[in-house]
């Protein structure tokens, strides 16, 4: 008769020969669990994952690819290896884009048009494009990029978020995959303690060796497709699209929208650039955690041993209409220069001044996204060539002309 836990334990001991009764038995169970995880990862193959599929469709050349995986995917990035190419790892937030109704493109792709090869090697750009990236995300992406041993690194430091501690991280899926790269730098440990959860650490380490854990996003996607068949809910068919030329803001076009998000994307009120909250929220006085992130980011770039450039992309002149905005941006630039001064290295160039200050008037789509990137691409191309020549990576580097410039 079973009356208490001890009776259950006795019964299991009799029937199962004392499984789990001793430390050795428990150890064997753990060992079999690990073997089981290895077997699952080998037998149940995760479907191949394609990074940045939506963005890559819009890049004409295959030499430039967005290597960022889905924002929920703990693997973070998927790069391509090509030893014959000159690989530039280009890390940045949404400011890597050129957005206008006439032309949507990526600034790295436009730079690649100007510098198609270095030392006879085709230039390949792995774009670590993180929409809405904050400063910790840029550091995580840089650490992952450096681990792939690129030939050059570019980092776009959007000044709006650089020293703004109201949002330091956004891509938390990178925590696990970055842990193993950042843990080697003891100065980064406060950041790991601040941002990483225990599961990020365990899964980040285990996922590197056990595909059953590392590929869990792909498994989840596969499982979701299977579970959809079991759902009692029907998937609604999309509304018929209006025929002929229709005003995208007409009632007929709105009726054809399948998700509220489509509506809000078109009709959302534009941000008022004169309000300039983001710049004024910045605290470039050394008192925020962002300082440590920027410090370690620059230290990683300085110690990478390959040419590296960190730059501040241009912001819309409209921003400067806000009272005190120019001074706020100047303080951000100055503080970045102070941090950069602590990481002087022949291989690292830090352009702490907002790039628009030294360029002819630029056209913007909104506060921080360019609508016509030509002059900025020229600036970056010259910067890259200058750095490659200074580092003697090549003896000749002359960027091509702007293919869209009006004669």
């Amino acid at each position, binding site marked *: 008769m079973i009356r208490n836990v001890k009776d259950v334990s006795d019964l299991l001991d009799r029937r199962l020969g004392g499984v*789990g009764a001793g430390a050795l038995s428990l150890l064997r169970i753990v060992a*079999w*669990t690990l073997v089981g995880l290895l077997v699952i990862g080998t037998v149940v193959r995760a479907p191949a994952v394609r990074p940045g599929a939506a963005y890559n469709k819009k890049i004409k050349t295959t030499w430039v690819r967005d290597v960022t995986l889905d924002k929920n995917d703990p693997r973070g990035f998927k790069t391509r290896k090509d030893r014959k190419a000159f690989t530039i790892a280009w890390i940045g937030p949404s400011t890597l884009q050129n957005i206008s109704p006439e032309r949507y493109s990526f600034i790295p792709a436009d730079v690649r048009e100007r510098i198609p090869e270095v030392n006879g090697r085709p230039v390949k750009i792995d774009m670590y494009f993180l929409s809405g990236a904050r400063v910790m995300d840029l550091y995580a992406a840089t650490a992952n990029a450096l681990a792939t041993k690129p030939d050059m690194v570019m980092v776009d430091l959007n000044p709006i978020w650089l020293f703004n501690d109201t949002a330091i991280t956004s891509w938390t899926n990178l925590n696990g995959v970055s842990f193993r790269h950042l843990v080697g730098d003891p100065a980064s440990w406060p950041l790991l303690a601040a941002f990483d959860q225990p599961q990020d650490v365990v899964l980040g380490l285990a996922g590197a060796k056990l595909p*059953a854990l590392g590929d869990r996003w792909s498994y989840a996607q596969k499982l979701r497709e299977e579970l959809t068949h079991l759902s009692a809910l029907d998937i609604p068919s999309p509304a018929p699209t209006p025929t002929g030329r229709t005003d995208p803001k007409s009632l007929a076009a709105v009726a054809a929208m399948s998700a509220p998000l489509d509506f809000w994307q078109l009709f959302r009120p534009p941000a008022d650039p004169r309000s300039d909250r983001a710049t004024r929220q910045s605290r470039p006085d050394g008192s925020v955690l962002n300082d440590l992130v920027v410090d370690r980011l620059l230290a990683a770039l300085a110690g990478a041993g390959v040419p590296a450039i960190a730059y501040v992309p241009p912001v819309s002149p409209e921003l400067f209409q806000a009272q005190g905005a120019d001074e706020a941006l100047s303080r951000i630039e100055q503080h970045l220069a102070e941090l950069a001064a602590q990481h002087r290295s022949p291989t690292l160039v830090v352009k702490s001044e907002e790039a628009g200050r030294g360029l002819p008037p630029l056209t913007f789509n909104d506060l921080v996204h360019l609508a016509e990137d030509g002059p900025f691409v020229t600036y970056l191309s010259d910067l890259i060539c200058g750095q490659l020549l200074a580092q003697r990576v090549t003896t000749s580097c002359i960027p091509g002309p702007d293919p869209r410039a009006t004669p």
Partner: protein
Amino acid sequence: MKRPRLDLPRRLPRYVVELVIGFVLAGLVTLAFTASVSSVPFIYQGF
């Protein structure tokens, strides 16, 4: 000196049960962590 006997026939059922428990645990661990990530593709609508 008398050599210890392996006595495998008596211990084999225990080892088999340990193996089964280990593999079942591996399956559960995989399933649990698979369920812990959102597989709905992320669409960032703010650029």
